[in-house]
């Protein structure tokens, strides 16, 4: 292989490898135990970034996402429970901030809508099925012969 083509080969591989590196700012938080870290990851995954269009805190680089991640970490360090942290965020940013909105009257449609729709469709399908006429009595031999003759003619 010529030097040029070898060089091109190496360069291509290098570029491909570089392309897989993400140079996003990484927030670094210290945890005492893996359980603590898992808890943090779980919380920031279920909290929505208020400014982004459908990203959670874990997946967002936005300034506000960083602030809320840091605040979540601080609250954990202060000994707050998961529910207390969720409520803290909801108090400031509303139900929108959690990917698991509470089940209350204002969110019934969101939670139960799909099931209601499914049941409705099932009911309609069953009702339509019952509406279909029942199978008629089978033909006697005379009628069968007539049917065969008719069918032959239309060939």
């Amino acid at each position, binding site marked *: 292989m010529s030097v040029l083509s070898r060089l091109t080969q190496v360069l291509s591989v290098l570029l491909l490898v570089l392309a897989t590196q993400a140079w996003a700012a990484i927030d670094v938080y210290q945890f005492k135990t893996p359980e603590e870290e898992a808890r943090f990851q779980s919380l920031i995954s279920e909290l929505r970034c*208020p*400014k982004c*269009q459908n990203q959670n805190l874990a997946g967002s680089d936005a*300034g*506000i996402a960083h*602030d*809320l991640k840091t*605040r979540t970490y601080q609250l954990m360090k202060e000994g707050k429970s998961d529910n207390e942290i969720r409520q803290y965020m*909801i*108090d*400031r*940013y*509303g139900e*929108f901030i959690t990917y698991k909105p509470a089940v209350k009257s204002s969110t019934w449609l969101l939670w139960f809508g799909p099931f209601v729709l499914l049941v409705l469709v099932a009911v*309609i399908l069953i009702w339509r099925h019952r509406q279909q006429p029942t199978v008629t009595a089978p033909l006697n031999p005379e009628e069968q012969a007539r049917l065969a003759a008719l069918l032959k003619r239309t060939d």
Partner: protein
Amino acid sequence: MNKKLLLALPLLAFLVLAGILFSRLGSNPQELPSARLGKPLPSFQLHALLAPNQVLTNADLPKQPFLLNVWASWCPSCAEEHQALMALSKEQQVVIVGVNYKDEPAAAQAFLTKHGGNPYQQIIADVDGNLGLDLGVYGAPETYIVDQQGHIRYRLAGVVAPEVWQQQLWPCYQAVLQQRESAACQF
């Protein structure tokens, strides 16, 4: 007859959905209703931007209705609304308290000088963004209408352009000045 009614259901459902979606056309999907509406301003203890030795708390806020404007020198839209805020404050005697959000004091002061003045009665230096977080701020600029009792009645997440003042803020602000409830306010 029954069958016709049932067949009309999908069309009906479509019309209802189309109606809902049509009504939402033009509204900004990024706008969030504030979770702090009707609640008092969060308590804070922060330095004044223009007098760094002075510590401001809720007791230092105006005892009358005012606008709370969240701004920063790094926010380009804040430059856009600065003129409008100056006009409101100087010509219409609207009391505006500024929250300088996650900013550097030097840069903030340079911003004011560059854009022709200070429309704020006071400026709270929220350097770490803690007050902003307690308010539910998710970007700059944001403007809140605060009533006589110190409760939040309106939250605007966006620029205070003259049309926005006329159509959104002023109707609520007027009601708040007259100490009455109004559908023009969000609370």
